[in-house]
C-alpha cells in the first residue's frame, strides 16, 4: 500500500464516499503545476509516461526529489496519449524480452504502487501466425520466453478458435491464419492514467512538473550541461534526461548529440463503442500489420503500420487505414458492420535496429530514453525505473545496458524484427 499520499488525498472507495457525502469536500489537484526552484538535481525533458516515470522512480527509489519535468504541451499528450495501450513481453531477443518482462511485472502492481487505477487488463495478447514457418519461429519465441520464466503458449488453429471464438479461420481469407503465440499476461492498460498516475505520485514526492514550456537550448560547461533553457526561463541542472519520443532527436540536437533516429507517423483508430465482444488483444502479422482490442468503454481500438516516409506531422495516409480495416474485417467479419469513430496519428522515433536507445550519451551528465518505435507504452514503467537507476548511480542499469547508444558503433544491434537499417520497416 502506497504511503506517499496523505489520508485525505489517497484515492479509495471510502474517499469517494466521503467526498460524495459532503458537498464542500473535493479532491486536491492531482499534481502541482510549475517549477518552484531555479536549480534541480535532475531535469527531465518530456512529460510523457516515460519522463514522469523516470521522475517518480528517481524520487521513490533513489531519494532524488529535486527533479523538474518539462513538458512542451500537456503531460501525457504525446505518444502516451496516442498508442494502442498494449502491454506484453513476448519478445525473441533476450535483452528486449527481459526488459519488457520487468516492465510487465511493474505494470502488474502499478495501480497499487501509484494509488491510481491503471486498469491493467491482462486479457492476453494473441500474435497470429500466417504460415507454418511463422508458427515454427513463434514456437522458438515462446520457448525463449519460457526459458526466461515467462509464460507463453503456441496455439494451433483449433486451440486458437477456442481462445478467440470470434476469429475467422475459414479458408476464405487471404493470408490464412495457421496458429498463434499467446501471452496470457499481456493485455492493455489505461494510457492516460499512466501519465497522470506517475505525475501525481512524483508530485507528492516533491517533483516539479512544468507544462506548456518548451526547451529551446542547453548551456554547456565543458562536457556537461549545466543549464536547460526554456521559453519560461533557465534552470540549473545536475543531470539532464531526454525523453521526448518522436522529438527526442530534435531535443538531443539542441544538446549537440546526434541520435540515429528517424521520426515516422503511425495511425490508430477506434470504432463506436459496443457491448463486450473481444476479450483479448489480437495482432495480424502480414504487412501492413494491424492489432486490435476492445477498450473498457467498448470501442474496438485498432493500430496500424507506420507510413513509409519520415515526417513530424501526426497524420498519415488513408490507405493505411484501408489496409488495417481490411485485415481486421478478414479476422473479424462482424467488424464490417461497425463504424469508425475517430482516427489519430502519432510520431514514433525509430532507430535503425528498431529498438530503444537508453542511458548515457557522449555528454557526461546527459541521459537519453528514446527510439521506442512501436513499443514505448509497454516499456513505460521499466524505462522509468532503469533510467532513474542509471541517472542516480551514473552507471547503466543491467537491464538497460544493452540498449546503449554505443551499440551502433560496436554493431551489437538489437533487431527483434530483423528488419534492418530502414526504420520504416520495423
Amino acid at each position: 500500500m502506497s504511503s506517499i499520499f496523505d489520508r485525505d488525498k489517497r484515492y479509495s472507495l471510502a474517499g469517494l464516499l466521503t467526498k460524495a457525502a459532503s458537498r464542500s469536500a473535493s479532491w486536491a489537484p492531482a499534481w502541482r503545476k510549475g517549477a518552484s526552484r531555479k536549480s534541480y538535481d535532475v531535469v527531465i525533458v518530456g512529460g510523457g509516461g516515460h519522463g514522469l516515470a523516470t521522475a517518480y522512480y528517481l524520487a521513490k527509489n533513489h531519494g532524488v526529489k529535486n527533479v523538474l519535468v518539462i513538458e512542451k504541451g500537456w503531460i501525457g499528450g504525446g505518444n502516451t496519449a496516442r498508442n494502442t495501450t498494449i502491454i506484453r513481453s513476448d519478445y525473441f531477443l533476450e535483452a528486449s524480452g527481459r526488459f519488457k518482462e520487468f516492465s510487465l511485472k511493474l505494470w502488474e502492481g502499478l495501480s497499487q504502487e501509484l494509488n491510481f487505477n491503471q486498469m491493467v487488463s491482462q486479457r492476453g495478447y494473441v500474435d497470429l501466425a500466417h504460415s507454418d514457418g511463422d508458427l515454427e519461429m513463434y514456437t522458438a519465441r515462446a520457448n525463449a520466453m519460457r526459458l526466461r520464466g515467462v509464460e507463453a503458449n503456441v496455439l494451433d488453429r483449433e486451440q486458437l478458435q477456442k481462445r478467440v471464438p470470434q476469429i475467422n479461420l475459414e479458408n476464405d481469407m487471404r493470408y490464412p491464419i495457421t496458429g498463434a503465440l499467446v501471452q496470457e499476461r499481456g493485455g492493455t492498460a489505461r494510457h492516460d492514467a499512466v501519465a497522470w498516475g506517475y505525475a501525481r505520485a512524483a508530485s507528492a514526492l516533491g517533483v516539479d512538473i512544468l507544462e506548456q514550456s518548451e526547451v529551446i537550448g542547453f548551456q554547456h560547461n565543458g562536457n556537461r550541461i549545466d543549464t536547460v533553457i526554456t521559453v519560461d526561463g533557465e534552470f540549473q541542472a545536475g543531470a539532464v534526461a531526454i525523453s521526448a519520443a518522436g522529438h527526442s532527436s530534435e531535443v538531443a540536437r539542441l544538446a549537440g548529440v546526434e541520435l540515429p533516429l528517424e521520426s515516422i507517423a503511425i495511425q490508430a483508430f477506434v470504432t463506436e463503442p459496443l457491448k463486450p465482444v473481444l476479450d483479448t488483444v489480437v495482432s495480424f502479422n502480414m504487412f501492413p500489420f494491424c492489432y486490435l482490442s476492445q477498450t473498457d468503454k467498448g470501442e474496438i481500438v485498432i493500430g496500424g503500420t507506420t507510413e513509409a516516409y519520415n515526417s513530424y506531422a501526426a497524420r498519415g495516409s488513408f490507405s493505411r487505414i484501408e489496409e488495417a480495416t481490411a485485415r481486421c474485417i478478414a479476422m473479424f467479419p462482424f467488424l464490417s458492420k461497425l463504424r469508425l469513430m475517430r482516427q489519430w496519428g502519432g510520431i514514433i522515433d525509430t532507430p535503425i535496429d528498431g529498438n530503444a536507445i537508453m542511458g548515457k550519451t557522449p555528454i557526461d551528465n546527459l541521459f537519453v530514453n528514446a527510439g521506442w518505435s512501436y513499443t514505448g507504452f509497454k516499456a513505460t514503467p521499466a524505462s522509468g525505473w532503469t533510467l532513474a537507476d542509471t541517472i542516480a548511480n551514473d552507471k547503466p542499469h543491467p537491464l538497460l545496458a544493452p540498449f546503449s547508444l554505443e551499440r551502433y558503433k560496436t554493431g551489437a544491434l538489437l533487431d527483434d524484427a530483423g528488419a534492418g537499417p530502414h526504420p520504416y520497416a520495423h
Partner: protein
Amino acid sequence: MARDRQPNRLNNLGTIDRTKPLRFTFNNRSYTGYQGDTLASALIANGVDLIGRSFKYHRPRGIFSAGSEEPNALVTVGQSIDARPNLRATEIVLENGLVARSQNCWPSVDWDLGAVTGLVSRIIGAGFYYKTFMWPAKAWKTYEYFIRHAAGLGSPPEGHDDAIYDHRNAHCDILVIGGGPAGLAAASCAALTGARVILCDEKMHMGGSLSWLRADIGGKPAADWARATIGELANHANVTTLSDTTAFAIGDDNHVVLEQRFGWKNRRLWKIRPKRIVLAGGAIERPILFPGNDRPGIMLVTAVRRYIREFGVVPGRQATIVTNNDSGYDAVKDLQDAGMIVATVIDIRDRCEGSVRAKAGNCPIYMGASITATRGRKRLSGINIETPDGSNHIACDTLCVAGGWTPSLQLYSQRQGKLRFNDTLGAHLPVDHAEPMIVVGAAIGTFDLGLCLSDGWRAGADAATDLGFTKPVQHKFSVTCEQSVDADGSAIMPVSKILPSKQKAFVDLQNDVTCADLSQALGEGYQSIEHVKRYTTTGMGTDQGKTSNVNAIRTVAAITGISPSEIGHTTFRPPYAPVSMGAIAGEARGKLVAPTRRTPFHSRCTDAGVVFLESGDWLYPRYYPQPGESMAEAIDREVRNTRRNVGMVDMSSLGKIDVQGADAIAFLERVYCNNLASLKVGRVRYSLMLREDGILFDDGTVTRLGENHYLITTTTARAGEAWLHLERYRQAYWSDLNVSLTSVTDDWASIAIAGPKARDLVQSLTDDIDCSANAFPPSSMMEGTIDDMPVRIFRVSFSGELGFEINISADYASSLWDRLVGHGPTFDLMPYGLEALDIMRIEKGHISVGTEIDGRTTAADVGLGRMVSTKKEFIGKALLQRSAFNEPGRRQLVGLKAADGKSAIPYGAQITDSVWKGTPQETQGHSTATIASPTLGESIAMALVIDGHSRIGAKAWAVSPVASRSVEVEITTPHFYDPDGTRLKS
C-alpha cells in the same frame, strides 16, 4: 399490432410523400411513416418519445436534433446477422420493413435496470474509476467484467456482412461540401464555368436550411428554389451531385474521402482529389446548458422547425423556447402554424430588440431568465425558471433550445486550417477563410440568406477563375427572408446557477458528462482542455462533441476565468461523422484483401493434382499427393524420387532482374559482397547481398549473359525489397552509373530439374545444347531451344542434386511442362513441391530467408564468411568492420542431430546446456528449421547457436518447454547430405 395513425403528423407541411406509406418496426411495435421520412421523423410522427438510454446513467433520452450531430437517438437497425448498432435515427432514411430497436437498456428502454447508476451518481463522477477498484489487486478483473458490460452502446453484430461496398476514385476541379444555400450557389456558379464540379451533402435531400426556412428566392419559396437548382445542376454534364454523402476526411494534397449511403446498409466510398474545395458545411445549433437539460422533449429549435416544415411532424403540443439569440424568436410562427402552443419564450439575455420580440406575438417572453430545473421522467412535463421578477413553473412537453451556432469546421481543421474563438459567435471561426479551402456561409458565421447565396456564388467563381476558367456573369439573388441574421451566441447561463443545482446539467449528452464533472476535473488539476476531455470523456462519444465541445470550452472558461481563445480546442480528427468499416475496406475482403500471384505453371500444377500453399504474395505448389497419400507420405516420396531418379519443381516465384549497361558489373560489384568481376560470359555465381549495416540481406545467383548483360535472381520473399533496394541505389545514389534494371520475374517461367537422371531428361528435350558434364559444367548457363522454344538453362541446384534450371518465356510454360511430362516416364520424373524442396535444402545445409537469413546474421555467422570480398567496396562493408561482428557470442549456423540417433528434435526449439527442468535457463541459441529427413532417416535441424562454429561435435539440448520436450543433440556442420557436393557436380 400495426398503427396506421400517426398522431403527430401534419396534414399539410413537409416534402414527405403521403401517398407512399412505409411500414417499420421500432422496439417490436409496428408503425407507419412516409417516403421521405427519416426514422426520427417517423418516430416523432408516431408519438414515440423515448428512443434510448444514455451511456453512463441510463437516463431516458429522446430525439434531440435532426442530423449527424444527434447525441441521443442511437438505435440498432436490422435483425439477427443484419443488425448494425449505434446508428442515428436522425440519419436513417426510412424504408419499408425497416426494423430498429433501442440499445444500452435492459430489460427495455422503458424499464432499464441500468438507471440505478443514477442513484450513486455523486460517487461515480468524473474519473471515479481511477480512484477505486484497486483492492484487492486481483479483483480488478472482476470489477472490469462488470464495467465492460455496463459500458458500450449497442450489441456487437454477428457473422458476415452481405452489404455491398465499393470504392470510387475521382478527380474534379472543385468539390463543394454542403448543399445548403451557400453550397448550391457555389456549385451553380462553378458549373457555369465548365469546371468539373462535385457537390455533396450529408442529408438525404440537398438544400440545407432552405428545406425549412421561411424565405423566397427569386420569387419562389426557398425549398422550391433549392429543388429547381439541384435539378439544373444534375443536368450539367460536368457536375456530379451526391446526396446522403458525407465528406468525412481530408488528407494532405486535398485527398478527400466521402461516404455515400444507399439505404442503411450499402455504401460507396469516394476518394476525390479536387483542385479546389469550397466548404459550405453550415453550422450546428448549440444547446444551452441548464439543470435537467436532457429529458425527452428537449430539442434543438432548428430541429423542431425542420421536423415541422420538412417532415410535417410536430414533436409535441405545448412548447417553450429557450434562447440566447434572436433566432429563437423565429421559431414561434413555425410552431404555432403547426398547431403547437408556444407557452413562453425564455431569453437568457438581458435585452432584445423590440422588432425581434415582436416575432413572439402574444406569447409571453421572460428576459434575463434562467431555467433552474425541469420535470418529467420519460417526457418533459414542465420547467422551473428564475427571472428577475421571481421564480415560475411553466408546463410544457417540448422545450426548444437555441444556444447559438457552432460552424462545422472539422474538415477545415483536418486540413490544418487554424481556428480562432470568436466571442460574439461563442464559437470558433477560421483564421483565414480562403486557406486552405474557401469557407462560406454559416460555416464562417454568415447567417443572412442573401449573403450566403452571394458569397457562395463568389466562392464558386473564385475557385473556378483561380483554375483558369472564365469568370461567369454576376448573379443577383433576390431574397426575402424574415429570418434573424444575428450571429450573437455569446450569452450562456452563469455556472453559478447551474453547479449548485440538484439536477444535472449535461454538457455531453451521449457520454453523460455534466458541468459538475468539468468543475471537478478542473479542481483536480486537469486544466488543459485535452486533460478535461480525457478525464471527463466530454466530446469522446460517437458524435465527437458536435453539440458539446464548444459548450465544454465555454464552461471551462466560465469556471476558470480563462478566455476560450486561450483555452484553445481539442484536435478535430477524421472522420467528421462515423463511417462504415465495411465501406473503408470496400471490396478488399476475403481473398481480395491483396492480389494473389500465380506462377506460369499454375494450371499444369493444378492438373497434376497439386496442393497449393498460400504464403505471402504467392500460391506455391506445395506437394503433389497421389491417391490415398498423406501429406507427409507425398513429400517423402517426392524427396526420395528426386534423390534417386529425377524431379521437377516450379521456381518461377524467384525474383529475376535483368541488368544491362556499360557499368552493369560496377553496379553489381557494389551491391553484392562477393567478387563478380571475374565472372565470365555464360557463367553463374551464387552471390550475397548485404544490408548497409553489414547484415545478410538476400542471396541468389548472378549470371553473365553477355559483355554488359547480367541476370540476377533474388529470393521469393525478398524480391520486392531487393528491387526497391537496387533501384534506390541506382536512382538516388549512383545515378552516374550507366546501368538499367528491368524486373523480368513475370516474363520467365522457371523450372528446376534435379536428380541423378536430370541430365538425361534435359538432354532428351534439346538438340542444340550439349548437356554433357564437360560441355555444361556446374555454375554455367547455356542458351538454346526446346522444340524451337528459346530457353536458358542454368546448372544450379538448391536440392543438392545434379540440377538444371530451365527458364522459358512465361507464355511457353505449359508447353515446356507438357514436354517434360511426356519425356518423364522414361526417367521416372515426378514433380515435387515446396515442402520437398525445403527438406532437401535443409539436408544440404542451404540457407533460406526468414530462417537463417533472419535479419541478424552475417555471412560469417552462416558459414559464408569466405565469400565476402576483402578487396572491393560494397554495400555493408564499412559497418561490417564493427567490433561486435567479430567478437565471440554471436549466434552461428550449425546442424543438430539427436544424440541418440533416433529421437525427434522438437520443432521451434531453444538450445540449452542442459535438459529443461521448468526453471529459468540461459539460452544458447535456437533452431531455425527442423525436419525428419527422409534421406538420412533421422531428425535433423539447422540452428543458430552462440559460438556454434567452435562447438561442432559438442553436445547440447534442444528444448521446447511449450511442447514439454527436451532432446539431447550433437552439434554438427549444417551440411548433412553430400557435404563435398559430389552429386551436385556429377
